[in-house]
């Protein structure tokens, strides 16, 4: 089914997650929904007793009804039906929500009866697309809904929800207004050059740009957190060869994924594993050992390890009992202290003789969390779990008051806007002329408009709709 076609038939889909649950909700939306509803749904009891068929139900009222197959009058399920009258529904079109029993057979049968009576199966995101087309959502909101469809954890849902309710849009609105103010100042200067009340001072213009840049930058920084919530949290295991990374990975996986040997440098590439730790979806990346090497293939692996480090949400830096102080010192250079935890491995093989010294080095680098584990014996593996949980919740905690950027397109647009505003500041302060600044600020506004949907661009509409057009 290609959603790009303007198929005007009503469409239906199950709106609750797959699998068995107590109840399920099936949505039927579009012009002509009530014709189908009247055929298949026989009202048993409605709030207003004079209402006999679904099409007569006032908006936002429910009824108790029998869902039947009009072909043979066979009862499929007893259901509760809610009616939404256009434009007061999520999609803006007429809509019914049918709450039925949660078994998958019931759901399937209701959908197939609706389909044989004139409805078509909804495509991915189609309810949202209709809501967008009917002007119920702006682009940022519509994309947030797409994220809801894609998001599978509760926290991601929260973040996505805050965008549905327009938090990001209203924040960007605020910056847009300010930037228009700066533009208005420039236009005053340019348009009425001989006028008495024309400001010659450009401080206010750069001040507005600076504030917008700092606001946009903090939104951009939130993208890494946002990504952690919509996608998976990325945990990177690193350390010197033979420090026990693969052993730990295998302990998490519960099977021998990486080849574990005593020869340093066995893991030449990064290995990835998807797992749930403390029911948090994570990707664990096992990197090649960090060390200088002359082996070309291994060198590639090390380069990948460094990339993985920069993309990580949480890094476990593994230190084996035989590790010496100088190699720790060297490796620490690659570590971001804000997301790195130090892990002393193989505690079943005894303590590292330089442990004290190493700990001091690590503290000096700004890393304060230490764990001592043995993947073999299972010692303190629960502490690692705690660390994962802590990182995840810290990101989640940001949600309460902040907006998280969860889409790469948004992050890119914000980055481009921020860069342009910086160059506007440069143009004004460097004496290039306010006309240059104005041109660049306008471009930045176009970038923001691409998120809120205020700028029309063929490219954008195509991108968005291609996303809607993935199909089922």
């Amino acid at each position, binding site marked *: 089914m290609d959603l*790009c*076609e*303007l198929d*005007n038939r009503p469409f239906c889909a199950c709106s609750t997650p797959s699998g068995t649950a107590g109840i399920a909700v099936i949505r039927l939306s579009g*012009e002509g929904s009530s014709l189908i509803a009247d055929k298949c749904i026989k009202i048993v009891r409605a709030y207003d007793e004079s209402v006999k068929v679904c099409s007569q139900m006032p908006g936002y009222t429910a009824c108790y009804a029998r869902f039947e197959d009009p072909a043979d009058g066979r009862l499929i399920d007893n259901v509760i039906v809610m009616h939404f009258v256009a434009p007061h529904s999520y999609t803006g079109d007429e809509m019914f929500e049918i709450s039925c029993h949660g078994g998958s057979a019931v759901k399937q049968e209701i959908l197939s009866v609706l389909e044989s009576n004139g409805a078509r199966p909804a495509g991915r995101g189609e309810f949202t697309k209709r809501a*967008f*087309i*009917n*002007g119920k959502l*702006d*682009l940022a909101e519509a994309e947030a809904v797409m994220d809801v469809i894609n998001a599978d954890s509760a926290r991601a849902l929260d973040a996505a929800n805050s965008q549905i309710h327009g938090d990001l849009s209203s924040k960007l609105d605020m910056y847009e207004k300010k930037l228009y103010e700066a*533009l208005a100042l420039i*236009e005053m*200067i*340019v*348009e*009425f*050059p*001989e*006028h*008495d*009340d024309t400001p010659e001072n450009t401080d206010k213009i750069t001040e507005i740009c600076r504030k917008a840049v700092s606001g946009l930058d903090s939104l951009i920084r939130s993208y890494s957190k946002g990504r952690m919530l919509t996608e998976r949290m990325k945990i990177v295991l690193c350390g010197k060869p033979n420090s026990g990374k693969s052993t730990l990975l295998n302990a998490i996986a519960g099977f021998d994924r990486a080849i574990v040997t005593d020869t340093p440098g066995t893991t030449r590439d990064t290995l990835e594993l998807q797992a749930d730790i403390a029911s948090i979806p994570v990707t664990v990346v096992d990197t090649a050992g960090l060390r200088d090497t002359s082996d070309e293939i291994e060198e590639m692996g090390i380069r990948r390890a460094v990339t993985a480090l920069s993309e990580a949400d949480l890094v476990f830096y593994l230190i084996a009992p035989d590790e010496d102080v100088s190699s720790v010192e060297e490796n620490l250079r690659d570590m971001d202290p804000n997301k790195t935890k130090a892990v002393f491995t193989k505690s079943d093989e005894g303590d590292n003789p330089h442990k004290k010294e190493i700990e001091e080095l690590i503290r000096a680098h700004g890393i304060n969390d230490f764990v001592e584990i043995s993947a073999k014996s299972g010692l303190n593996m629960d502490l690692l779990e705690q660390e994962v949980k802590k990182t995840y919740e810290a990101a989640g905690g940001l949600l309460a008051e902040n907006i998280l950027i969860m889409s790469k397109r948004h992050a890119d647009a914000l980055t481009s806007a921020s860069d*342009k505003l910086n160059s506007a500041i440069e*143009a004004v302060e*460097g*004496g*290039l*002329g*306010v*006309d*240059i600044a*104005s*041109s*660049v600020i*306008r*471009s930045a506004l*176009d970038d923001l408009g691409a998120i809120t*949907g*205020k*700028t*029309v*661009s*063929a*490219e954008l*509409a*195509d991108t*968005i*709709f291609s996303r809607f057009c993935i199909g089922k």
Partner: protein
Amino acid sequence: MNIKQALETQNAYMAGEYDVAVVGAGHAGCEAAAACANLGLKTVLFTLHLDSLANLPCNPSIGGTAKGQLVREIDALGGVMGKIADKCCIQMRMLNRSKGPAVYSPRAQMDRSKYSVAMKCYLEKLPDLDIRQAHITDLLTSDDDKKSVVGVMTESRAVYSASAVVICSGTYMESRTIRGEVVCLTGPDGLPRSIGLSASLASAGIPMLRFKTGTPVRVNSGKIDFSVMTRQDGETDVPPFSFDNEMNGIGVPEEQVPCWSVWTTPETREIISSNMDRSPLYSGVITGIGPRYCPSIEDKFMRFQDKERHQIFVEPMGEETNEMYLQGFSTSLPEEVQIRMVRSLPGLSEAVIQRSAYAIEYDLVDPLSLLPTLESKIVEGLYTAGQINGSSGYEEAAAQGIIAGINAALKVKGEEQIVLNRSDAYIGVLIDDLVTKGTSEPYRMMTSRAEYRLFLRQDNADKRLTPIGKKVGLISDERYEKYIKKQEDVEKETLRLRQTYIAPTKELEEILVSAGTTLPQSGISLAELLKRPQVTYELIAPVDGKREPLPVAVTKEVETILKYEGYLKLEKEKIEKFAQLERRLLPSDINYESISGLRLEARQKLNSIRPLNIGQASRISGVSPADISVLLVYMETLKRKDKED
């Protein structure tokens, strides 16, 4: 009324047969008539009064912010205004010098009567143009389902046939001038007004509007004390408007006349506020809508109540007259109040008013009823240009005039008409704004209305438009050769500066440090050096030994291209995105009512304006980005259906 019916009216006679008839000889009409005649069409130009041809009834100046760009563009297309303005210039200035090349705006004070005479002389010499003093009262059209133009008729019942008609009626249609409680049934400057033509247009089905504008008082300089005023002199290092003059080394005059400025006094404010009840705007005598950007002095005091005073410029009307124009002192208060207001100004306490200020109301066509070619959507072959389309200003009028003239001529010849894009010219922005967004007040061109003003500079108007003028036929071979030579020079010099590297010598250091910048660490190309805000082409002359003498027009453009390269590139990307939407054409027979996803308002607006492409559709007020997305999806569906069929 068709020609036959017109000839049946009493005293009617057939007075002439023309390809194009131009009604009104203001700045729009003169450009339109000149374009048609220069393209070899048999053309007639009508004016209510021959001695007021190309009149400057308001400020005695041409150019200014955005308007200076328009004049350069008109000239680049092969128009007249720039050449005449250069001839009659008594003071020239380049505004916005410190604010960047995109907004450099040339402005010239005009000798008003000389301008009118010079334009008349020019037009009279065009072999294919007849000029006629006459009052046009009727537009003649065919009786077909889709009306088309067949000619015009004068008040004295002279019938002229024409395949195309360009109406440039300025502020004359059904006009009335107002000073306080006194209403006069005249056109601007006390000239006769146009009666009947507006009704004739309305009866052809054209939607009409009514606007208001105004002009300040003129005083005799004899009794002005200039010693208390601030003097403002002209500049001689500004290029003339016309590229022909610029390339032929004809510059602006060495001897220039000064302008002056003063501030209003508390007394001025007091006189105005105690007489506000006599202002026709506030008492309700005037109902037409006035321009926000050119407010009357009483409007300024009412709207900006926290401002104690406003600036007034005193400008000469010519070299052979004592008449001075008070810019910024437009008013529609009663004459008696005007005298007191003027005498409250510093240096003007004894001043004698020669012409009083007035507000003027006039009829115009709703520009939403026009195609981007300036042809009416309702009457085929009818074009309108200037204030009749809702604009304000001489330059805006002339800009539409040349386009309407060119398109009327192309239409008669059966050739494809031209539309300038928003990324081609200010003229494109002006016309697109009028025909796509409409206007609720007299529309003034401003640089901020242009999205791509780094590209739409006054210095490169020739590069943007002269090839178009050449293709149309308004640019002579001789001028085109000069144009090509200039472009080659620009290209060669740009390349040379990119490829010329200089070492960080002591001499260079001295030059750079004196300009407030520093010596580079190692060798650097001259192009890179020019990117620094402090460095100009002139500055580095001593270290640029291989430099050949080039016209300033060339070196200035080269400097701009190099200095703003990065920003120009960014803007070019924007233009490309814009062009993508502009290229997505909308079929002319599309029925917007049948597209279910469009909101009601969008359906109605799209059906009535009928945009040519998605880009134009996106600029219609009331059409949201979501509507555009719906349209894009709809068009995609059409395309796929076509493929299937």
